[in-house]
C-alpha cells in the first residue's frame, strides 16, 4: 500500500529581546548557571510579572509577515504543572486568545513546486529553566540534578502549523521558511544550536487518497535541521511498519534520541497532565489598536517573498537566481551590497552564486563568515565592469582576497600588476613583437581562406596575452591583430 505522511509542526522561536518576557533579567546565552535569573524568574513569593512590550511587537511583526490575523485582544493564561525547572509551578502562555491567528506560508521544497502551509496560530509564552542531570553528584557520589534558571522566562513565540505538511522534506522547507522570516524580521537570531529554534512534530500516516487523518504521535526534542528530517522520517517509517504488522499507532508523546536515531515514548506520568489552564490574574489582557498595528506595519522590512519578486522585476534576475539570493537575510544583504557597489545586478548575482558560493561550499562556511566581504567583492566586480581587469585576472584577485593577501581588489591588482593594458601603442608594440617572432604563422594565416582565419587568430591572441602577462585588453588585441594581419 502507498502511504502518505501528515505532519504538523510546533516551532518555538526564541525572541531577540533584551530582557525576559516578564522580568528585566538578560537573556544572553551561555552565562554561568543562575546568574541571569532575578526574583521574578525564581518565582519568589510576592513577585509579579510585567509584560515586555518588545516581545509583543515582535510577535505582531511575525503575524504581519505571514499575513495572519492579529489578535487585537490576547490573553495570557497559566499552564499548571510541577517540574523542578518550572519555578512558579505554572508556565505563563497564551491559550484561548493568542496574539497571532491564522496565517499562511509559501514554501518551495523543490524547484518549481510551491506549497502553501497554513499557520494555525502563534502565541507568546515564557520558557522554563533547564535541568542538568549529568553534572552533579552529592557527597556520597550519588547523582544529583542541577537546575539552571537562566533560561526561565525567556520569551518564546510558539508557531503552530496546520497538518499541511506531507514529508520530512516539506517540513525542512517550512522550518527554513520560518527561519528566514524570523531572521529577516530580526525578531530572532534563529540559532538552532543555542536553542533559539526548537521543534516538535505531530506525525501521522494514512493510506494515500484517504481523507481521514491517522492517529498522531508527537515527537519532541528535535533541535537541528539534520535531526528534524531524520526524526520525522524515522517516525513515519515506524508508524507504517507498525500498521503493516497489524498494530495501531498510539496517541502519545515520543522523544527523539539523536544518538540512537529513534523515537521512544515518554513515560506516561510525564504526559498525564491536566494543565488546568486559566487566565493569569497578574496580567491584563493585551489589547492592541489599529494605529499600533499600522505603525509596526510601516516599519516592516522587506520579506523574502517580496524581495524575490523585486529581484525579478527590478533587477531582471531569473526566478531561480532571485530565489537563491533572497532565501536568507545574510545572503540577500550580501548580494545587495555587492550589487550596489558594482552597479550590475546580473554580474553581482553571477559572482555571488558562482565563485563565492562555490568557495564557501567547498570550505563549509556560511556567508556571514565569508573571508571576502561584500564590499571587497563589489569593488572587484566593479573593476571587471570598468575594464580595469579582465575576467581571468578577476578570478586571481578573488583567490587573493580569499587568502587574505590584500585588503582591497585594487591593492591586489596593483601588487600583482594585473591592470588591463588599454593603451593602443603599448598593445601594438606587443602585437608587433609577436608577429615579428612568428613569421611562419603569419605566412600561413595570410595564405589561408577567409573562413579559416577566425580560428587562426586565436593563436596570436594567446601569444599576445602571454607576452602581456594577461593584462592586455582582449578586444583591443583582437582588433589590432586583424588590422595588422590584413
Amino acid at each position, binding site marked *: 500500500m502507498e502511504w502518505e505522511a501528515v505532519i504538523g509542526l510546533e516551532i518555538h522561536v526564541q525572541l531577540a529581546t533584551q530582557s525576559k518576557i516578564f522580568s528585566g533579567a538578560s537573556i544572553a546565552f551561555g552565562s554561568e548557571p543562575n546568574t541571569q535569573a532575578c526574583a521574578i524568574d525564581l518565582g*519568589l513569593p510576592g513577585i509579579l510579572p*510585567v509584560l515586555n512590550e518588545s516581545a509583543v511587537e515582535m510577535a505582531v511583526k511575525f503575524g504581519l509577515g505571514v499575513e495572519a490575523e492579529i489578535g487585537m485582544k490576547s490573553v495570557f493564561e497559566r499552564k499548571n504543572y510541577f517540574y523542578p525547572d518550572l519555578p512558579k509551578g505554572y508556565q505563563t502562555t497564551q491559550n484561548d486568545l493568542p496574539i497571532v491567528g491564522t496565517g499562511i506560508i509559501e514554501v518551495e521544497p523543490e524547484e518549481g513546486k510551491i506549497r502553501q502551509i497554513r499557520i494555525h496560530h502563534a502565541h507568546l509564552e515564557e520558557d522554563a529553566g533547564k535541568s542538568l542531570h549529568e553534572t552533579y553528584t552529592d557527597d556520597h557520589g550519588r547523582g544529583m540534578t542541577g537546575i539552571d534558571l537562566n533560561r526561565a522566562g525567556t520569551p518564546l513565540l510558539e508557531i503552530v502549523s496546520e497538518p499541511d505538511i506531507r514529508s520530512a522534506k516539506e517540513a525542512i522547507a517550512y522550518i527554513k521558511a520560518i527561519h528566514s522570516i524570523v531572521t529577516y524580521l530580526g525578531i530572532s537570531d534563529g540559532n538552532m544550536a543555542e536553542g533559539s529554534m526548537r521543534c516538535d512534530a505531530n506525525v501521522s500516516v494514512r493510506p494515500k487518497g484517504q481523507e481521514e487523518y491517522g492517529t498522531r504521535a508527537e515527537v519532541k526534542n528535535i533541535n537541528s535541521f539534520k535531526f528534524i528530517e531524520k526524526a520525522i522520517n524515522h517516525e513515519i517509517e515506524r508508524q507504517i511498519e507498525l500498521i503493516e504488522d497489524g498494530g495501531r499507532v498510539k496517541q502519545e508523546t515520543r522523544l527523539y534520541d539523536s544518538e540512537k536515531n529513534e523515537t521512544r515514548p515518554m513515560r506516561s506520568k510525564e504526559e498525564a497532565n491536566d494543565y*488546568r489552564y*486559566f487566565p493569569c490574574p497578574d496580567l491584563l489582557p493585551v489589547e492592541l489598536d489599529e494605529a499600533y498595528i499600522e505603525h509596526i506595519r510601516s516599519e516592516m522590512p522587506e520579506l523574502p517573498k517580496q524581495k524575490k519578486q523585486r529581484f525579478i522585476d527590478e533587477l531582471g534576475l531569473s526566478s531561480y537566481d532571485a530565489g537563491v539570493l533572497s532565501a536568507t537575510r545574510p545572503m540577500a544583504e550580501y548580494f545587495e551590497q555587492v550589487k550596489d557597489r558594482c552597479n550590475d545586478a546580473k554580474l553581482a548575482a553571477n559572482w555571488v552564486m558562482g565563485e563565492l558560493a562555490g568557495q564557501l561550499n567547498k570550505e563549509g562556511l556560511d556567508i556571514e563568515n565569508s573571508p571576502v566581504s561584500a564590499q571587497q567583492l563589489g569593488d572587484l566586480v566593479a573593476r571587471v565592469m570598468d575594464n580595469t581587469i579582465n575576467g581571468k585576472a578577476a578570478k586571481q584577485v578573488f583567490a587573493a582576497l580569499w587568502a587574505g593577501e590584500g585588503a582591497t581588489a585594487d591593492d591586489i591588482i596593483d601588487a600583482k600588476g594585473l591592470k588591463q593594458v588599454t593603451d593602443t601603442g603599448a598593445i601594438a608594440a606587443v602585437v608587433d613583437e609577436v608577429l615579428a617572432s612568428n613569421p611562419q604563422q603569419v605566412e600561413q594565416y595570410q595564405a589561408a581562406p577567409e573562413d579559416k582565419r577566425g580560428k587562426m587568430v586565436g593563436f596570436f591572441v594567446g601569444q599576445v596575452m602571454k607576452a602581456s602577462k594577461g593584462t592586455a585588453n582582449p578586444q583591443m588585441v583582437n582588433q589590432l591583430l586583424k588590422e595588422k594581419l590584413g
Partner: protein
Amino acid sequence: MHNKTIAELAKGLADGDFSSVELTRHFLGRIDALDSQYNSFITVTPEQALAQAKAADETRASGHAKALTGVPMAHKDIFCTNGVLTTCASKMLANFVAPYDATVVSNFNHAGMVSLGKTNMDEFAMGSSNENSYFGAVKNPWDLKAVPGGSSGGSAAAVAARLAPGATGTDTGGSIRQPAAFCGITGLKPTYGRVSRWGMVAYASSLDQGGPMARTAEDCALMLNEMAGFDPKDSTSLKKSVPDYTEGLDQPLSGLRIGLPKEYFGKELSAEMSDAIMASVKEFEKLGATIQEISLPNTMLAIPSYYIIAPAEASSNLSRFDGVRYGYRCENPENLEDLYKRSRGEGFGKEVQRRILVGTYALSEGYYDAYYRKAQRIRRLIQQDFLNAFNEVDLIMGPTTPTPAFDLGSNSDDPVQMYMEDIYTLAVNLAGLPGISVPAGQINGRPVGLQILAGHFKESQLLNAAHQFQKATNWHQLAPSSGE
C-alpha cells in the same frame, strides 16, 4: 502615648513632645509586656525599629521630616521585608527571608515610618478567625476567649491593644474589614489596583488588595496617602493620581444618599447586630444624609462564586512552594514526587490544603466550565448589582459581619460555617470596590463593625463619611482593658 492616634503622634513628633526613639521604645515595651496574651506578632524587630526611629529623628532634626516620619507601625507578615522573615504564618515559609521589600513596605520606609515587626495572620491569608496560623491563634484583645477575625487578625489585635498605632493588612474576601470589626478598629480595603500588590504574597491575585488598619478613619487616610499609587512592577495597579485622602475628611454629609441593601439585613443577622447598625445609620441621618433601601440581588451567590475563584487562583499561586528552591523541604525525599508530596503535605496547614484541593478541582478539565467559568459569570453579575446601586446612592452601608467575634474553636470544625462569616464582605472583593469597617457599637463587650462601601476609587468619600461618623460617635475611642 499609646492611646494617641497616628495623627496625634505625628503632631507630637512635629511639636517635639517626644522623639521617634522614645515612641518606638514605648511600643516595643508594650509588645514585650503584653503580646504574650494576644500572640499578635510573629516577628518583632526591635533593633531595626530603633535604627529606623533614630534615622527618623535625624531626618526631623535636619528639617526634612514628612507627615508620618518617625511614627511606628507594623506589617502583616504577608508583605515581604528585605532581610526580615516573611512567613505568611506558614510552616512552608517559616524560614523565608525575602531579598526585597514589598512596594507597600518601601513606600512606608520612604515615608519615614518605623516598622515594629510582622503581625500574625491566617496562613497565606486563608481564614476568618486567625486560628489557621502555624504560629498559633491570635486572641481578641476585647475578650481573650474570642477570635480577632482574620486573616489580618494580628494587625487588628495589635492596633486594638495599642501595641502599634497602625498596621498594614490585606483583604481578599474581608480580611481587613472583618478583623477590624471584631477588634473595634477602622480598616479600609481600597479599590482593586489602588495599592501595589508587588511583594505581597499572593493568595487570590484578582481579589487581593492591601490596605491600612488603624483606630480612626483619619489615620487610615494618612496611611493610605503613603500606600496608594501606580506601581510599574504591578501590571494590575492603576495609573491614576493619588489624591490627599485627608483633604476631604471634613466635607459635610448633607445630601449624601445612603443605600441599605435588604439582602444585608436577612435572618442570619441577629436583632442586636441589626439594632447596632441601624443606630449608626441614624447618626448619618442626623448628619444630613438620606437613607433608602436598595437591593443587591446576587448577594447570596457571592460565597459560592468567591470560594471557586479564590481557591482556583490560590491553587496556582501556591504551586511555587514545592520544596525545591526555598521554604520548607521534607526530610530525605525518596524521589521528586515524594519531595513534592511530603514538602507540601507537611508544609501547608489544613485550610490551605483544603483550598488548594478545591481550586485544583474547579480548574480541572471537564469541570472548568461548570465551576470557574460560571463563577466568573456570577462575578460580573455581582459587579453589575453594585454599579446599578451606585446609580441610585452614593454609599452603601450594612454590617461588616453577621455576628460579633465568635469564640475561639467554635467554628474550626465547620469550614462552611466559617465561610459564611464573610457573607457581607466577599462581594466587595469580587466587584473590586473600596470598603471600610468602622466601630459602631458593642454587644456583650465585643465590638460591632459598620461597613461602608463606595464606587471604584471613591476612597475619599468613604473616609469622609467614616470620619464624620467618628466625630459624632466614640466607639472608636474605646480601649480594651486587657491592654491597660
